[in-house]
């Protein structure tokens, strides 16, 4: 995976994880472009888009689009599973996760992603282990009040 983007139906970015090095301007340009491409696709099309020399794999969960850019030799169908697994992890951690959870706890979303994927490759295939690692890490945190699991909005 080269990068992963999460954005809402209005095109607002909720998470960006880059596994390649690019200038800031370039990243912004790419984000704009991809958001436009994905938002303009209708229901009837497949989840895959050829983009430059990469393949974009995207899926919508409620109001959030999850979009990954993969290389030519990567398996598109498996990438869909990877995205689904990430959503499952978020769900397990937050309990019935929704977009607001990710907005208000974006740093947690990143932590969970980092327990699942490193350098663009999956590191842990067990749902239980990944979430447990996050929960254990949470326990280590010194200031609990700041980082409760489900703060009130």
């Amino acid at each position, binding site marked *: 995976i080269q990068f992963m983007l999460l954005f809402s139906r209005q095109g607002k970015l909720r998470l960006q994880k880059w596994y390649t090095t690019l200038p800031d301007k370039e990243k912004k340009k790419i984000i704009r472009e991809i958001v436009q491409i994905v938002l303009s696709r209708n229901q009837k099309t497949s989840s895959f888009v050829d983009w430059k020399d990469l393949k974009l794999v995207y899926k919508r969960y409620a109001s959030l689009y999850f979009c990954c850019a993969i290389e030519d030799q990567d398996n598109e169908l498996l990438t869909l599973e990877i995205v689904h697994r990430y959503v499952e992890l978020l769900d397990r951690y937050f309990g019935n996760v929704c977009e607001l959870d990710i907005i208000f706890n974006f740093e947690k979303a990143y932590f969970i992603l980092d327990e699942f994927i*490193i350098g663009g490759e999956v590191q842990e295939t067990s749902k239980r282990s990944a979430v447990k690692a996050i929960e254990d890490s949470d326990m280590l*945190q010194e200031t609990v009040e700041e980082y409760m699991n489900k703060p009130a909005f």
Partner: protein
Amino acid sequence: MPAPIRLRELIRTIRTARTQAEEREMIQKECAAIRSSFREEDNTYRCRNVAKLLYMHMLGYPAHFGQLECLKLIASQKFTDKRIGYLGAMLLLDERQDVHLLMTNCIKNDLNHSTQYVQGLALCTLGCMGSSEMCRDLAGEVEKLLKTSNSYLRKKAALCAVHVIRKVPELMEMFLPATKNLLNEKNHGVLHTSVVLLTEMCERSPDMLAHFRKVKNLSSSQLVPQLVRILKNLIMSGYSPEHDVSGISDPFLQVRILRLLRILGRNDDDSSEAMNDILAQVATNTETSKNVGNAILYETVLTIMDIKSESGLRVLAINILGRFLLNNDKNIRYVALTSLLKTVQTDHNAVQRHRSTIVDCLKDLDVSIKRRAMELSFALVNGNNVRGMMKELLYFLDSCEPEFKADCASGIFLAAEKYAPSKRWHIDTIMRVLTTAGSYVRDDAVPNLIQLITNSVEMHAYTVQRLYKAILGDYSQQPLVQVASWCIGEYGDLLVSGQCEEEEPIQVTEDEVLDILESVLISNMSASVTRGYALTAIMKLSTRFTCTVNRIKKVVSIYGSSIDVELQQRAVEYNALFKKYDHMRPALLERMPVMEKVTTNGPTEIVQTNGETEPAVLETKPPPPGLQPATQANDLLDLLGGSDITPVIPTAPTSKPPSAGGELLDLLGDLNLTGSPVSAPAPQIAQPPFLLDGLSPQPLFNDIAAGIPSITAYNKNGLKIDFTFERSNTNPSITVITIQASNSTELDMTDFVFQAAVPKTFQLQLLSPSSSVIPAFNSGTITQVIKVLNPQKQQLRMRIKLTYNHKGSAMQDLAEVNNFPPQSWQ
């Protein structure tokens, strides 16, 4: 100073902003507060402030002043600080930043921290965005952690190693010892990341690949069998809730193993054989009702097609793809088409079975699916199915998006040329394309079509009639108009005399014909090239029409003062023809003889011309001068064929008989060459067309009995190479040499490669040899065909290079061949 507001508080506040301006104001205020807080070196709230900064960064606001703060957080002892610090580093401190390297020491310390979660943070950060220098510095630490028994850290270290290798490939060697034991783990995380690491190493280095194919690990088993075992366990084992996805056990690991097997099995018989069984097992046993099963099947198919699998397995794979095609899920159809496209060359017959499904995909709504279906369809056209396929493809051409039309049109032309069941069908198909997508047809199609039309002698009347009718209604599609003008110019007499046999002849007068040609000339829609065609056509009609010669003269003289230089030049010359050279006019404007049949680029070229769309209005592009010598041949070409090279009023060409002798044919041969130029963006190879003739059955060559003596070109160390010759009937510049290599020693010669080079004025084409082994004791030979083009009829010389393996050592020799018999090149 009051405590800085909490992160959630800030987020809530910013979300209440109703306009962009309001939001910006809030952000600026908060940034100012954060900045002053940073200045005060406030340790307690640094973490909170950086977190807020990261949020604002995600909204798109600048956050570079937080970079150093991230470093301070990473250096802190508190876990909370480190967590946010590393997150900030990953978001703000990529390798392009100056302060990036300052992290190295902190990461090094944290890699050795007592708490595994801290170590984990460090590994993760390094593995996501470490620069090459950082990787070099810390590779040793990573390698150490790769050998730890703590599986939580081991899996992270493995992926970190992958990143290090990607950044600094030279360091790959140092991770090799640690890999010996990696696959003995039970922990799936470690297994998965280890497979990824092995894959990365094998992909990057052929030496590594060879090593892993052969080496035995600590428990004395080789890699391929070990992977097969692990995969088997995954499939056969019962339900494991931890790793289960819809009834399949750890699909992520399964897919990665399949991918590694693919790399190990590629071009390697032994490895491939070891995995045949498991591949068959996976292919038949995997549940296909959900996406996850299909993901595994997909990877399996890719692996089967890429390794040296037995044919039964390959057929199984293609059938799986066929089933995919019928799946309702678009993603699966997409993936199937992509894979079929990759395999259609090698397993053509198997893919043919699914042709009707593929053709149905042409009607899909998804653009990517349509494109792939189109490419596949062209690859599948053959002599048997051409009528049906063409019908579908023409229908597709009608209704598809503009970006496809150019490729589709070219594809149809190529396929039609190769497989046309009858001339009439061919012409009809061309007509259909020209009228449906006339403006999207590529430039080079026009000369090809013209040549095709001249070849179908009995269809001339029919063709010109249809073309005439086509442009009567609409003369805006340039390629159509060009072809039509040319034909009308050539065969106008057939048109007005109503000679058509194939369909009901129409009644057309000479004036009506001239009307349409003049409209083309005048029309704003006509490109300059098109006008050129029209004018030349009008001129040609002066010898074919009887009543309207004066009208033609008038038209021609009008354009003598045209602004368009090209037209002006032509008109002036034509005028001169009428006045001073009237006696030559009939001969010059004679009917074109049948042009030499030429094959253009093969159908595979279509795949490469994806995404390349010619603009609707064709630019005037003079065909490249290429192989044309600037002789009198040019002048004749100009008047007859319409190429744009500097024209000169011809001096007396001797009146040639209608069945043109060798010279005229050569000129027309040249016309063909200009007819197949390379249009700038297209990656097509503009080989001299006639050398490609050899790829199709060869009707143009003499038999050997024409009596050119054969020669022995080389005879040394038991290797003898003989040359036998043939000359082309219709093109005297081509010589075909068949080499026969024989071996009189007592051991076979293997991996035999024959290479040849000729002087600059020649061109050479080597076809594939019959094999690469010359058996001993002269018991068999290798044959190979060479074609030499010798337009200047110079003495044939050749330098050859031979490489082969004999008696266990590699042999190589260079030699010159100078004893070519004169009949082979004169």
